[in-house]
């Protein structure tokens, strides 16, 4: 997967942008084909037989054979893959082995919750990351800087399960400020988003800090200071936008990651996201669902990066997407 690529030139033309999007869409199709092929081959190479998982314990050998035939699992692998690809082109992700339901609708049912948690989680990450990153950059080398950097290190290394349960215990069980689990009201999203935000903010804080330190040493910042501008204005108007580029790229990556599901956080808070679906499917060797979720999250990662590439030139006109 390519991260955002930038080149510094003077102009950013609309034609260039259209070309970029077109090229990236072609790339996306190729990447998805590759992901589909690799996942498909790996899943069917597993020493586990989906037909036997469906048939359960009391099934006779004949029942298992019948199920295998009905699912098309007795066909050569390439024939199966070709049939799968034909389905995808027509927007058909197949039917779940265990649930006997259209995979597309199972995934679609979980998209809203996944999107909400992704957006809220990234929002918290970025807010916390920017705040502490800027503070650390301004107090570079001082005690505050060291505390912030230490805290961000702890944050990124803390296990999701522990942080999620801790927040749940304090804010839902003991204080009762938020519901313990579920989905539906804004209150439900606070704790899951806070968990993701606290865990991910460290990366942002570290990146913002180093980008800000670079920018703060630039001539134009010194000029602005010499002009007598307030330091708040210098930071927010002049320095921060130039430090935003790596942050944008990182948000693009996070979009992809969170769309693939955040299994632990979803499990603790009973959040009906795509991660729970994937986790259950893996345990049941429900290959069509695993394939579907993998493709959807691969698509999200590619699109997330594409969006980051498109936004970058809008924030920094010196950049022209290539």
């Amino acid at each position, binding site marked *: 997967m390519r991260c955002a690529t930038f080149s510094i030139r003077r102009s950013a033309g609309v034609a260039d942008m259209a070309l970029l999007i077109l090229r990236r869409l072609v790339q996306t199709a190729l990447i998805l084909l590759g992901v589909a092929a690799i996942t498909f081959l790996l899943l069917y190479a*597993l*020493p*586990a*037989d989906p037909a*036997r*998982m*469906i*048939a*359960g*314990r*009391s*099934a*006779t*050998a*004949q*029942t*298992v054979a*019948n*199920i295998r*035939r*009905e*699912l098309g699992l007795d066909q050569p692998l390439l024939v199966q893959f070709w049939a799968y690809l034909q389905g995808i082109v027509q927007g058909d992700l197949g*039917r779940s082995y*265990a*649930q*006997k*339901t*259209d995979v597309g*609708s*199972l995934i679609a*049912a*979980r998209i809203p*919750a996944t999107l909400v948690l992704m957006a809220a989680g990234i929002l918290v990450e970025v807010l916390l990351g920017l705040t502490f990153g800027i503070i650390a950059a301004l107090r570079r080398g001082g005690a505050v800087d060291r505390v912030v950097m230490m805290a961000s290190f702890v944050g990124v290394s803390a296990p999701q399960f522990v942080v999620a*349960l801790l927040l*749940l*215990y304090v804010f839902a*069980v003991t204080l009762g400020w938020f519901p*313990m*689990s*579920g*989905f539906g009201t804004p209150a439900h999203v606070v704790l899951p988003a806070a968990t993701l935000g606290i865990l991910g903010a460290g990366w942002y804080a570290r990146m913002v800090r180093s980008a800000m330190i670079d920018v703060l040493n630039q001539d134009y910042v010194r000029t602005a200071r010499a002009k007598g501008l307030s330091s708040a204005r210098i930071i927010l108007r002049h320095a921060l936008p130039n430090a935003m580029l790596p942050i944008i790229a990182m948000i693009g990556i996070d979009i992809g990651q969170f769309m693939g599901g955040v299994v632990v956080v*979803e*499990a*603790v*808070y*009973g*959040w*009906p996201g795509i991660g*729970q*679906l994937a986790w*259950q499917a893996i*345990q*049941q*060797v429900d290959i069509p669902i695993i394939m579907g979720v993998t493709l959807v999250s691969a698509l999200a990662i590619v699109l997330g990066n594409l969006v980051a590439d498109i936004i970058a030139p809008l924030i920094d006109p010196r950049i022209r997407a290539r």
Partner: protein
Amino acid sequence: MFKSWLRNTTIATVLALTPLPSFAQDTPQQGGDIIVTYKDDIATLDPAIGYDWVNWSMIKSLYSRLMDYEPGTANLIPSLAETFGVSDDGLTYTFKLRKGVKFTNGREVVASDVKYSIERAVNPKTQGPGAGFFGSIKGYEDVTGGKTTTLEGIAAPDDSTVIFHLSRPDATFLHVLAINFASVVPHEAVEAAGGDFGKKPVGSGTFVLKDWTIGQHLVFERNPEYFVKDMPHIDKFTVEVGQEPLVALLRLQKGEVDIAGDGIPPAKFLEIKNSADGPKMIVDGQQLQTGYITLNTKVKPLDNLKVRQALNMAINKDRITRILNGRATAANQPLPPLMPGYDKSFTGYAYDVEKAKALLAEAGFPTGFETVLYSTNTDPQPRIAQAIQQDLAAVGVKAEVRALAQANVIAAGGTEGEAPMIWSGGMAWIADFPDPSNFYGPILGCSGAVPGGWNWSWYCNQDIDKRAVAADSMSDPAKVAERSATWGKIFTDIMADAPWIPLINERRVVAKSLRMGGADNIYIDPTRVINYDAIYVKQ
């Protein structure tokens, strides 16, 4: 011809006149909405397909079948059937349906619906796991072989009569008609659902599915038209899915949840048990389950009987029950204690390290040997596997523990010569119906000792197989006790060959809120786990 007709009719009448079986300590109240939680999504509510312990009890409540069980027990009773009779040769079963029973779509249930539903469960196109249960019905092979879609052995001469013709006597046949796969469904609803009947179920059971928000919750409402008066007791139950067991328990303690379906995580068990209201919240009941270690009779040196007997004496089963916080009892035979045929007087192989060592030496392994023990990889199974490993080490057997995903363990077990020993924890045999034969065929009989089978000991004793067939032909309802005893002897005789180390009978634990009423065996019903029909809310 139908000598048992009269007796069964009498039983049915007595049951119909008794409003409720004697399990209830206080009178069940009518009404109340409750919330039940589970970790995993509900896979399907199609009775021909659903086959896990979570959807099993929901399917039981959504549909009705010719036969059912008295709540909390393993006693068969007619349900959709009003009366039934068995011919002297055990090959013909005739059922008279109750009149006026309606599907929740408003149409009356007729005999041809029974025929259709079982044919649907057997049809390979349905991809149902339960087809094999109906193997004794005449014409079964023609349907599974794809020659036809109708079962020659089921006749519906009029709207209220169903006649089954069997190709061999099958003493378990009444149980077969009580399992979920025999649930009666309306063909028009199946066809209208277009392959999604599992999400749009229509039956004639105690409850109706009102709403299913995928990944979040299912709402079941009482069927006011249900044919047994005062059943079910609760008005509504909402199943919330995706709920982590630990969080479900916290919510239960706060009063947000009434039943935590996944029970109590091991780490929390003692804390709850020792809390003030704890004992009233824990339902701890026996189920028809045995956890065992398979000893592969086709792998050296486990092909040696003395070695298998020695290993049977080497395991400290009481220590394993302690790992499970006492939520299990030591087992000594394949059948669990609740199962008809269980032999209380049988002692099996007692734990005796010295005797085990002596037997190993006698078998030619004075210094032990190396082997592999498979286990599933979710807690607490690897810990139990380690305890087994230590016990084996004490008699000189060095076992490598391979903790894998369930699907991989199943695959290894079904591959000839692959897995010397498998600890069945996490996938241990739980009975499909309360009949001892259910513990034989697939897991200890010759028919299961095939590639892809579940007889992971690869044990095949032709003599025992013959005795099993004979026992299953004893279909005269008057010989039930004799038949159970015959089966019991089969299982204790199997232990002489020691293909298994029967380890523990695990109890199921369900956590319920203080307002929930009903005896423990309604929450851990031997045939359906939670019996949604019989539970009630104390007002």
